[in-house]
């Protein structure tokens, strides 16, 4: 089986990507490209659910930063779902990267956060 899986669902205005398994230099770029490639232009942003990732290394962190830049260039937001005490949380702490952008504890919170970012309807 592959090291990690990415399951993509579409919420109104957002793409939600649930990542499971281990992310390292062998598959980090592929994960990033899969998510960015699947994001529709009209989406407000991307929710990257890392709550079930069992391992993330510096290559993975690098890709997440890269994803944020490319989404920003398209005017889209990236919200990370990282519960406290999860392996990704610990990896970010070790890397001294506690603030990799907007982080929530659950996917629902992330979707609410995206909703708040939405420009008011005219």
């Amino acid at each position, binding site marked *: *089986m592959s*090291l990690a899986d990415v399951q993509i669902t579409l919420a109104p205005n957002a793409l939600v990507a649930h990542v*499971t*398994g*281990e992310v*390292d*230099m*062998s598959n980090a770029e592929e994960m990033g490209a899969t998510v960015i490639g699947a994001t529709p232009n009209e989406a407000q942003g991307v929710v990257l659910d890392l709550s079930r990732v*069992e*391992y993330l*290394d*510096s*290559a993975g*962190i*690098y890709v997440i*930063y890269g994803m944020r830049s490319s989404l920003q260039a398209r005017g889209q937001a990236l919200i990370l779902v990282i519960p406290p005490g999860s*392996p990704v949380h*610990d*990896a970010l*702490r*070790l*890397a*001294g*990267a506690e603030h990799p952008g907007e982080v929530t504890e659950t996917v629902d919170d992330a979707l609410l956060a995206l909703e708040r970012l939405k420009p008011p309807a005219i």
Partner: protein
Amino acid sequence: MAEADHERVRRPRLGPGQIALEVAEPITEASEQVRSSYRFSDPALSELPLDALLDALLNRIQAALEVDTVAILLHDEESQQLVARAAKGVEEEVERGVRIPIGRGFAGRIAAERVAIFIADVDHADVLNPILREKGIHSLLGVPLIVEGKLIGVLHVGSLTPRTFGPNDLAVLQLAAARAAPAIERASLTARLEHEHSVSVALQRSLLPKSLGEFTGMTVASRYLPAREEVGGDWYDVIELSRGRVGLVIGDVVGHGIAAAALMGRLRTSLHAYAIEGHGPGRTLELVDRFVQSLNEPAMATAAYAVFDTFSSTVLYSTAGHLPPIVVSGSDARAFEVTPAPPLGAFPYGRCPEHEIALGSGELLFLYTDGLVERRGIPLSDGIDALVEALRGAGSAEEACTAAVADLVPIEGLRDDVAIVALQNSAVPRELHLQLPAEPKTLAQVRRILRRWLVERGADEDDVAEVTIAVSEACANAIEHAYPPAPADFRLDAWGTNGEITVAVRDTGQWRPPRGQNRGRGLSIIVAAMDDVQIDRMENGTEVVMRRRLRHR
């Protein structure tokens, strides 16, 4: 480099008591050579179907060499094993379906090294096949069967009395092998085609896993023995799961014939599909039960599903009416008895409880179907007791399978089919000394090996997580240093003393300063996760030595 190194010929790797023979001289007695070559080149032989051809060849070899036993094992490429195909004097080899892994024991070594091997005294030599000992064979001589550079099998002869097989014997046996190999190859091709026509056998075969895969921290072995007459519905499966876990399945559809084999295929697929979704063994069996209930046909099967976790060395086990597994611990073996849930398809909404089995370093879990232990007129518990006896002392999953088949499968063959799958929790070494390919996919393997090793050294969950990420980062650096296209390796050594572990990662490339803000994070992680980090940049490579005191010992 010294001259001698260039001239050194690679020596075959042999086991104890094995002697490699070479054909040094031509056969001394011309008349014997003529006689032998006539025996093996008889044009009539090429007309025979495979079984008759092998029979004729064995008879001629037995007469020419005046030996007590002759056996031909053919190479099964799918399983990388030698399968006994024809024998004289040791007919049990074929009847019990003896399978010898390439590289192991007498025949396995002949195949792996492609050399002739002589064993003067079987009692003091590396011989895997118990039948050779049981028959009281004293001396053995074997040669590889090779056609156009391809290994197709092994031919060996044996003597019940001590005998020194010499160059003349070897020359005759090699002549026989040279004549036999192409004929066997030709006839097996034809036989394989005919075999495919037997729909039920082909169906059964196609439904079983082609290869068991390779796993870190454990080894698996399996057997499927068809029944003498009818196709059955037994199956096994080995499923790679996430987080260093592996699933082992054994199952048995009630009934025989094509219908049973077809249902087996559906059950195997549905169980496999639920398992890779990440359901535990109990839930997986409950879901398969629901699937069986949904079929509008009478269908019943017993099955057991075990999930082995290589990090914690535990098995989670659930059974739906299946026979108890056997746990082997060195010279001790016992049946793991639990009250099984009802068979699949027996009652709607059955519940399957999960049971935990601790599997120590080197211990084995053995799953099997009833065909192995059920004999007419003998209580089932006696059959299980006999199996427990047979498995005592089995040192590997492969050995356990060989011992069970050798001791329990009757000479006259089986009335019911048998599936077996065995797993061994590999012993964790005290120190790690690994030479690894510098490729990104190596990292996941390093982490699996390291996690097991750390747990064995007494590391707690935090120790394991933090040391693993630090070492994986150091390895990632080593991999980045290795410039393509030249294939490169790096070294990983790990040892521990007094609650402190040390891991050294060494490559042969040049240290590259971190590039960009994020690329430097790898080094930050290493420093943050370990108590002490030394980076030595040398002429011929870079070494990162990391130490950490474990929190709880």
